């Protein structure tokens, strides 16, 4: 900037601010005549404006040396796509002509493989991942073999809802049976039942109802097979036994008054047992 306070006006009558206003026109070459003479005279004598003229000219030359930069080839296409949303037919033709037609499936494949599968595939290709995957597969196959699952069985698996429900209940029943057949389980259950029976108070009505209960369960031969045989062929404590005849030659043993000496054919002792069958 010229120092206007120190050298505001030269002998040719031009002020520094006037010089600055004419500077652009002088550099552009449009300043002519007496105006140009006064301008050049001021530039010769003014120590502030002379460097300004030189620097401005140099700066203009530097800038004029800059060439235009080439915009990217896709700029127009991007602008049209961002403004109108679609490319024009000519642009579409120029863009599509060198490229083969790509089906939608290839687009989907490219999108999937590019965005999703590519990173996964990069990970899978690493040896440590392959080793881990192999170990996991081995463990799974061993586990299935131990569990009794065969791949051939899977072919016959029905996936109907009813079949799935049936399989579920079958599996559940099998598990419950397995659980209850474990020795420690049924021993604990037996102990618990015993403890419960001991702790429970005796109920008098229970004996009275027991025969009725047995009567109800008379057809059940699975639980008490021996009891049924005894019911038919053995004597129970409640059965009544009757003795009805005098025995032997010594009637005095029982009752001497009832002895009949006139009947010698009578046996010496006669015991008749009347069994009341239930």
């Amino acid at each position: 900037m010229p120092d206007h306070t120190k050298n505001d006006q030269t002998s040719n009558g031009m002020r520094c601010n006037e010089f600055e206003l004419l500077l652009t026109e002088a550099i552009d070459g449009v300043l002519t005549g007496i105006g140009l003479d006064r301008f050049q005279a001021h530039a010769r004598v003014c120590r502030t404006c002379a460097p300004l003229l030189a620097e401005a000219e140099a700066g203009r030359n530097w800038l004029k040396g800059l060439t235009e930069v080439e915009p990217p080839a896709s700029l127009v296409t991007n602008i049209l796509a961002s403004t109108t949303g679609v490319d024009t037919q000519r642009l579409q033709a120029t863009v599509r002509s060198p490229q083969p037609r790509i089906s939608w499936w290839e687009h989907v494949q490219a999108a999937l493989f590019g965005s999703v599968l590519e990173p996964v595939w990069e990970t899978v290709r690493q040896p440590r991942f392959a080793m881990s995957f192999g170990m996991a597969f081995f463990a799974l196959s061993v586990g299935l073999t131990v569990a009794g699952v065969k791949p051939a069985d899977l072919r016959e698996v029905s996936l109907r809802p009813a079949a799935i429900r049936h399989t579920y209940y079958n599996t559940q029943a099998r598990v419950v049976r397995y659980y209850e057949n474990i020795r420690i389980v049924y021993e604990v259950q037996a102990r618990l039942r015993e403890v419960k029976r001991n702790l429970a108070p005796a109920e008098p009505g229970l004996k009275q109802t027991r025969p009725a209960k047995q009567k109800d369960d008379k057809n059940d031969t699975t639980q008490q097979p021996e009891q049924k045989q005894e019911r038919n062929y053995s004597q129970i404590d409640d059965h009544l036994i009757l003795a009805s005849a005098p025995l032997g030659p010594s009637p005095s043993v029982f009752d001497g008054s009832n002895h009949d000496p006139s009947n010698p054919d009578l046996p010496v002792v006669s015991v008749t047992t009347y069994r009341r069958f239930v």
Partner: protein
Amino acid sequence: MEDVQVVAMLVRRCIAGDSAAWEEIVQTYSRRIYNICYRFAGSGDDAQDLTQEVFIKMYRTLPSYDHTKGAFVTWVTTITRNLLVDHFRKGKQDRMTDSMDTAASEHEDAQPLSEQIPDQSAPPDAHVRSREVSESVHAALAKLSPELREAVILRDLQDMDYREIAAVLKVPEGTVKSRINRGRAELARLLQRTYRQVM
């Protein structure tokens, strides 16, 4: 530079929905706008984004263009300049003109511009030298304050006259001339240490 009637017709066709007219406008002005953005922003990527933004804004506000109020190129340049100023303010890149010995920025290894500008004493090739000179001038231009930079870009790179520049910058012609002079001088001072023989 442009036939006012032809451009007015083009704009009317574009407003009516003629995509070919819009494509013609884009083809005609994209290079110019890209160069303004490139010289102002200093980066090709930023210039591309800004150029797209300029055309998006132009596409939306095209019905507001009145050919009786000014040339279409002035209107387009005004939109460009306003967007560049907005971009500059958003980025808080308000860097005043730096000295040659000050660091260019925190991201440039704290190297002064005089060291970034290659020494031309022994250029291996004229083409390489020319490219290096261009890069040096471009880097020095980015050091100017935005007011001086936009003025010299519009005048010396886009060849706009002072009246058009005054319309774009919305300042008087005297202010435009003053900014141009100061911008040129500042640029020369930034470059003179390396390129003394030009001075």
